[in-house]
């Protein structure tokens, strides 16, 4: 039987061993001019050689402090920033070199939910128009916009009678549900959530996390869940990637990262989290500030703050070590010996 391209495009990506998203050595560098007349531009390596892959129906949590490049990485994958190098394969297609037309078609499968639920909704559009605009654009309306909108609102746990309301009439949690409804409307494979629950109150944050978890099960979704909050991430991610100054320093299964963190930076992040009723912050473990990404330290970027720093860390780039799917980039671990 001949499968036409339309059918193929319709199918969910479920080739079991082929990653949905494959990012290799991705770089996003910015040139920043100091002063109006300055000729010399400073280079900020916001994303500096990031490699990871994401399987279908998997969630990777991307954590790091502000300025580590996690948001830029997400934006580069979405095509909102131009990559300076490396490659990204999404559903087997090279995302960075796609033609405008192919990229537009790809966008349907690659959706995003941003941090601020209000500023990412057009204040002059009602909810029905917001959540079905994508369907209209991609000619995927199989029914009236009303029917589609009501179904989507039901899916994200909102009252379907609300379709004619405007964004300002909703609370923060409800607005984020609308953003989620819009993101799932096109039946994407991957949703990039950039601090999607960070602006919400605790009780509402839990609701939205639960919503994302159940939608993932129902629709076979993958998430790249970007957040500064390791606790939140550990509740949603199958694997966690820790970023520091533009580079991924450790990736592993959530349980391994939380219980057996290898990189001193990951250990510092975990030590810094107060867990109400259980553990207090380990003050001794947390020192220093993130250096400017415009002038990262030599050798291992983390060495000025690292409690384990050795002389070698000051000048040599740390080697990469893999063991049982747990990756770490640190001089303490010998390559591929774990």
């Amino acid at each position: 039987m001949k499968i036409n391209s339309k059918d193929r495009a319709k199918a969910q990506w479920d080739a079991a061993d082929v990653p949905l998203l494959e990012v290799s050595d991705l770089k996003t560098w910015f040139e920043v001019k100091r002063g109006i007349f300055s000729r010399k531009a400073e280079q900020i390596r916001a994303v500096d050689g990031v490699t990871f892959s994401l399987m279908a129906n998997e969630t990777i949590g991307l954590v790091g402090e502000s300025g580590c490049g996690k948001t830029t990485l997400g934006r580069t994958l979405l095509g909102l920033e131009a990559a300076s190098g490396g490659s990204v394969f999404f559903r087997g297609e090279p995302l960075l070199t796609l033609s405008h037309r192919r990229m537009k078609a790809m966008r349907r499968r690659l959706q995003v939910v941003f941090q601020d639920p209000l500023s990412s909704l057009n204040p002059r559009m009602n909810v029905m128009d917001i959540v079905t605009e994508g369907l209209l654009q991609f000619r995927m309306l199989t029914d009236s916009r009303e029917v589609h909108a009501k179904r989507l609102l039901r899916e994200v746990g909102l009252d379907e009678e609300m379709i004619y309301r405007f964004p300002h009439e909703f609370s923060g949690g409800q607005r984020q549900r609308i953003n989620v409804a819009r993101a799932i409307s096109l039946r994407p494979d991957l949703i990039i959530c950039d601090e999607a629950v960070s602006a919400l109150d605790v009780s509402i944050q839990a609701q939205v996390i639960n919503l994302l978890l159940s939608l993932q099960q129902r629709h076979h979704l993958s998430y790249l869940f970007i957040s500064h909050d390791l606790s939140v991430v550990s509740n949603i991610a199958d694997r966690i990637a820790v970023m520091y100054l533009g580079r991924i320093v450790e990736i592993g299964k959530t349980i391994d990262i939380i219980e057996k963190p290898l990189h001193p930076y990951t250990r510092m992040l975990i030590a810094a989290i107060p867990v109400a009723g259980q553990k207090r912050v380990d003050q001794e473990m947390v020192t220093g500030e993130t250096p400017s990404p415009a002038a990262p330290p030599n050798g291992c970027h983390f060495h000025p703050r690292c409690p384990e720093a050795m002389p070698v860390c000051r000048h040599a780039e740390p080697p990469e070590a893999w063991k049982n799917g747990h990756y770490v980039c640190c001089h303490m671990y010998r390559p591929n010996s774990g």
Partner: protein
Amino acid sequence: MTLLSVNNLAVEFATDEGMLRAVDDVSFHINRGESLGLVGESGCGKSVTALGLTRLIPSPPGRISAGEVFFESRDLLRVEPPELREVRGNEISMIFQEPLSALSPLHRIGKQMVEGIGFHRRMPQKQAWQYALSWLQKVGIPDAPGRMHAYPFQLSGGMQQRVMIAMALMLSPKLIIADEPTTALDVTTQAQIFGLIREMKQNETALLLITHDMGVVWEMCDRVIVMYASRIVESAELSELFSRPVHPYTRGLLEAIPGLARGRTHLKDIPGQVPSPLRYPSGCRFRDRCPHAFERCRTEVPGLVECAAGHWAACFLAYPDAGEL
């Protein structure tokens, strides 16, 4: 010994849709040297309570409509403005969430600090400069002499907050009000600021910490007050509150906090949403979201009752005549 006692404080704001009561009949006290946490979700009235204490409510549209705030022997709501200015910054100082908007963008750090000292202390300029400098060093700012000449925007968020802490502490106030002091910071910076506040806060200095984050309360406080929908719903010693929360809202809030997990974990959430202050339900304001709500919750407002020594809750289930929770 009681340092500050707040009795039946009420703050109202005039809006297009009518009068909004942001703080409703709030009473609490802080002892000397105590760290009290005031927690709740956005819009619960915790920040307005803090601003009300030192009469910093913008008016109009705001208005303190009832209550008294006794700081030592004076009612701050009734003292004359010059006396109030003497208290603010000197005996009560504040640390805000956004250091960058709390510091003047046009003046160098040193100048701002010296100005604050000059306002409350008779001290020659040079000596004040040295005094300010010594505080910048105490809060761990590297190259403090150089930083005295820096503008706030030239410092990182963590360093700005350190400057705020130095300014709040340098006049040895009796009470520090900190409104979400670490919310805008990274967790690692937050951990350092915790340590700094703990270290710098002398024994007789009291702290009123306003936050939405139970983790922050856990780190910093001796006693906790939980607010919901403009009212206090529970207050207790730290470990008592975390181990035996009584009010269903407090219980829900503690359960909803994502702890460190091992992967996909459904969290216990509190269904529904915080009611608008313009349309609070009758009776208990949490009843629409409460799994235990019954008839009485609709018709009657639950007052705070002492359900264990020093543990107060505003819930009918905590009343002596109620059955097992």
